[in-house]
């Protein structure tokens, strides 16, 4: 499974209050949530994602609240994949469960500049930087989680599994 897009780079400890502020938690429509993604950084930040991007971040991405709204907002705004040095555990589970690829990749922050064209191989755990020509090795996504992502999230995955039985 390959994901491509321009890099949007963030720092360490990006929290869910910044990804999707509390005042939007009464929204449930993904498109509406997407309009407010990363509003804690600056209003209108989500417009950067419109063409489809790969988000690159440091340690502990998605710390804080269990709000799935955060992962949904990023995906709906156009984030095709999040590559981070490490993830907060609830965010990681949420991302996979809603079908947003999340790849753990040590050393990624120093190897990517904002706007670089990235090509992410989820199965083999590789991030190719087409702008610089560099390749960074990452933790491959385990096969069972890749299947969840291929099916579009845990709900679709469970339904397909049930249909096969």
């Amino acid at each position, binding site marked *: 499974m390959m994901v491509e897009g321009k890099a949007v780079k963030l720092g360490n*400890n990006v929290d869910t209050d*910044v990804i999707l502020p509390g005042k939007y*938690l*009464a929204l449930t429509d993904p498109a509406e949530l997407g309009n407010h993604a990363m509003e804690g950084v600056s209003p209108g930040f989500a417009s950067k994602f419109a063409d489809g991007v790969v988000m690159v971040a440091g340690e502990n991405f998605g710390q804080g609240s*269990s709000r799935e709204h955060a*992962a949904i907002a990023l995906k709906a705004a156009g984030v095709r994949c999040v590559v981070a040095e490490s993830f907060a555990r609830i965010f990681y589970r949420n991302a996979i469960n809603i079908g947003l690829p999340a790849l753990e990749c040590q050393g990624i922050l120093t190897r990517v500049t904002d706007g670089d064209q990235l090509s992410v191989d989820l199965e083999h755990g590789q991030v190719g930087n087409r702008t610089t020509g560099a390749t960074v090795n990452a933790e491959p996504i385990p096969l069972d989680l890749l299947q969840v992502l291929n099916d579009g999230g845990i709900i679709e995955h469970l339904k397909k599994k049930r249909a096969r039985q």
Partner: protein
Amino acid sequence: MNIIEKILAKASGREQVRPGEIVEAEISSAMIHDITGPMAVQSWKKLEEAKVWDPDRVVVIFDHFLPPPTEQAASLQKMMRGFVDEQGIRNFYDVGRGGICHQVMPEKGHVRPGDVIVGADSHTCTYGAFGAFSTGIGSTEMAAVFATGHLWFKVPRTIKINVAGSLAPFVMSKDLILHILGKVGVSGANYRGMEFTGQTIEEMTVSGRMTICNMSIEAGAKTGIVAPDTKTAEYLGASSSNSFESIGSDEDSKYERTIQIDASSLSPQVARPHSPDNVAPIEEMSETRIDQAFLGSCTNGRTEDLQIAARILDGRRVHNHTRLIVTPASQDVYRECLQEGLFEVFTQSGAVVTNPGCGTCIGIHMGILAPGDVCVSSSNRNFIGRMGSPQARIFLASPATVAASAIAGKITDPRKLS
């Protein structure tokens, strides 16, 4: 095995488990509230299952929109009531019946030592104070739990935090957990369990232990836990603590590391913007004028939190340029404080007392911060924009420090006013 490993082993029907192993554990209780619940129900509907696995193990609590501040929030609650009716869920706490979920869960008997509890809220780790393995999950994952009554967990490595010495007067469990966060960092316990042991924890009230376990997520932990004892049994109304004895860590338990802390020399602590691990002892704080002080939340909205604040506020006035918002954690806490006359003290001092709820802490309603506002808060997170404007600044502190600061109009050591 340590206590976390023992609980996961029992819940997954195994003799033994080791850190790193994946286990499929039976769920004792599954909790949703009015923010994460609607999404869980949406996902649940997509699964096209008829009934949840066990309606008596599902707990639905309204607390974030209490009472609903917008038509949109009211509509979400209406939808949730439909789900509760359709599924025959009896453990339902509507407006005026419960309060903040993490207070209501143990108060109403949904938490037992040795339980495996999942909640669609990150502060679900609070119930570790009762010797339960409890952790936060997302809404869609909760829909899967509703269908099966099981969930997979990776058995975490555990960090032991051993605390010795008695806390000084007006130094609270909140100061201790802030100090620990300063040492461990916001990702220092990511994916790990945190077990709190030692004399200080043993001496601590159950309410204080809840504050400690509540903020273990602020270190990234999967769960925070304290072995149950007679205090746990008393709180839960059990007739004897004997049945809990088997749920402690073995003498030869393995830990990733052990952190030793001397609590006797601890002073009040403050977490400065914009991270709960940006902690300093209050003596090291430069003068910080505050516009708002907030006393409440699942971290510090219990009766003993309001009692200590009332002791400090009694006969004094909240500073002219500061507003103090007091929010009891639950209807039960509200009634207790009302009967004890604490609201008389708060209102005489110029504070506003609100109904129980999460609104202020999460920046939804009842005390949203304006750009440039500075707030001292007894809650758990001071991220950018958490309580309103991204241009506001939040300092986390104990209920005693919040009360003293409200009087002085600036961040103040409660030992100076007591």
